[in-house]
């Protein structure tokens, strides 16, 4: 079916691992009952998405998009800088959302004395 050459192994490992990370995180978000586990799942979804973005921008045998004094004219070999800039902002935003979610978890725990979502029945807090 498919011969295991360089291209196939690389695409299977990178794309496959990012897709599996996203699915694992989504599984944790949907199935788990503990609130901290849900936040862990959200951060794992974030990680998989970042890996997918950077992998789409990769160029075979490319170099990082930084001009050094020796290689000013290496434009043809540089990887795509746009997904890197997007992911750079996405990581920082991911930390901010994670911190806000964790503070909500702390607040809910202080009020209900439990961190399981099926035991938190009242909507007031």
């Amino acid at each position, binding site marked *: 079916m498919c011969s295991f050459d360089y*291209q196939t192994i*690389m*695409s299977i490992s*990178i*794309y*496959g691992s990012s*897709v*599996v990370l*996203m*699915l694992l995180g*989504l*599984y944790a978000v*949907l*199935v788990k009952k503990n609130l901290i586990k849900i936040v862990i799942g959200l951060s794992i979804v974030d990680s998989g998405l970042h890996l997918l973005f950077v*992998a*789409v*921008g*990769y*160029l*075979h045998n*490319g170099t*990082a*998009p*930084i*001009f*050094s*004094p020796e290689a*000013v004219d290496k*434009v*043809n070999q*540089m990887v*795509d*800088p*746009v997904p*890197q*800039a997007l992911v*750079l*902002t996405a*990581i*920082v*935003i991911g*930390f*901010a*959302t994670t*911190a*806000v979610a*964790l*503070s*909500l978890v*702390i*607040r809910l*725990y*202080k009020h209900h*004395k439990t961190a399981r979502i099926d035991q938190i029945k009242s909507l007031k807090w």
Partner: protein
Amino acid sequence: MKRFLVIFLMLALGFYLIQALHFVPFGANRMGAPADKKTVAAFYLNETVPQTAVANVVTAIVVNYRGFDTLGEVTVLFLATTGLASILYKRRDEEETERVSKPSSTILQTGAKVLFPLVVILGVYVFVHGHLTPGGGFQGGAIIATGFLLMLIAYQKYHLSHSMLTWVESLAGILFVSIGLWGLITGGTFLENSWFPKGTLNSLISGGAIPIIYIAVGFKVAAELTGVLDILLSTKDDKSASNIQQ
């Protein structure tokens, strides 16, 4: 039952994701020849050095071409800090603010005192050289916040002046917006930096206003992340929580 439903959903989603990614070969040239300037990435790669004289293309995109994006992101960070403080609000006059962490040993305190300036200098180095080497405001700000985290953990009564954090953050934000508005007045677009001398490529003073903006972003991010960690660490320990821990 629910678990099997979720696993079925996962399988379907994974199938469609893999089918979509099957047509994106890994490592293939998706930009075309950059000299043609047909794609966005080729435009950035070709025009960064003549227009801005910045060696790091990612810095040029983050600060200059997509400067609005960065401004919005810094605003999101500020809003996250504010939301965190309002969620975990605790009245100051109720009692002395006490940390979650336990008192640490003398060795850790002395070592933290030695290591803290080194960590802060590393962060400042990273965001001052953001236009030449990998790094920049976000990374440097995060490293400085890590240094403050070390002090907050080692010393239980380490006092962070909140008015100082507020001042640093506000002044950095005002600097960023005012440079952008000055570009709007003189050049016609927000964050236009043609009014500033460019300098030569690969030297410390190059890139016009880009290093100044990135330094401002670094100070702002450092103040915000330090504020987040300080608020998270100074939430009071309930008795029930400590009972479960023991």
